[in-house]
């Protein structure tokens, strides 16, 4: 039997989890690429030129988006859990997403 659950806070939870998961999966790759610098700066450069490709740019945008969304979502949770107020949660969830969009879009605009 299907289960209805698509309300804002649940979506915020899912987004936070998927972004955390995404970041955790990306992280080893990120470390690995940086480690190139150890042996060969040229290799790193070669890799970095890839970032000029639009598709890669988009992926980067996605990554920064994930980081931002996870950051703001995480801060929202920390505030909810540890600060002595519990403001309307939905607004915070929305604000977090909005904030991440803002940051990531800034990043994208800068990158172009």
């Amino acid at each position: 039997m299907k289960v209805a659950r698509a309300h804002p806070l649940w979506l915020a939870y899912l987004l936070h989890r998927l972004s955390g998961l995404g970041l955790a999966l990306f992280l080893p790759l990120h470390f690995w690429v940086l480690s190139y610098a150890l042996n060969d700066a040229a290799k790193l450069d070669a890799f970095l030129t890839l970032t000029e490709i639009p598709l890669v740019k988009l992926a980067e945008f996605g990554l920064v988006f994930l980081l931002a969304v996870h950051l703001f979502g995480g801060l929202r949770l920390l505030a909810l859990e540890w600060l002595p107020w519990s403001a309307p949660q939905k607004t915070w969830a929305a604000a977090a997403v909005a904030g991440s969009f803002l940051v990531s879009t800034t990043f994208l605009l800068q990158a172009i």
Partner: protein
Amino acid sequence: MSEFHLYMAQRLSALVMAPFVIVHIGVMIYAIQGGLSASEILGRTQGSAFWFAFYGMFVIAVSIHAAIGLRTILGEWAGLRGGARDAVAAVIGLGLLALGAQAVWAVTA
């Protein structure tokens, strides 16, 4: 470590990371202007005790944080329980720490 201590560790590591991530994103936005290059990155970071401490702590925090987070997901979504789950999470945490340490060493040493 009890569930509660894992929780505290995850929240505290998140708190530690929050400023790092903001700075990190900020630096990226600034740095990416005009494209990235290895020398640019390394020029900024190499030999800098500040960036060593910065990224070093970042890596420690993220290893703890992500390992605990993934442990939760393994339990809830993959049905992994008990010692097996803890072991996998520990391996993930140590793996991230090792890779991260290597990367920090690479860019700051």
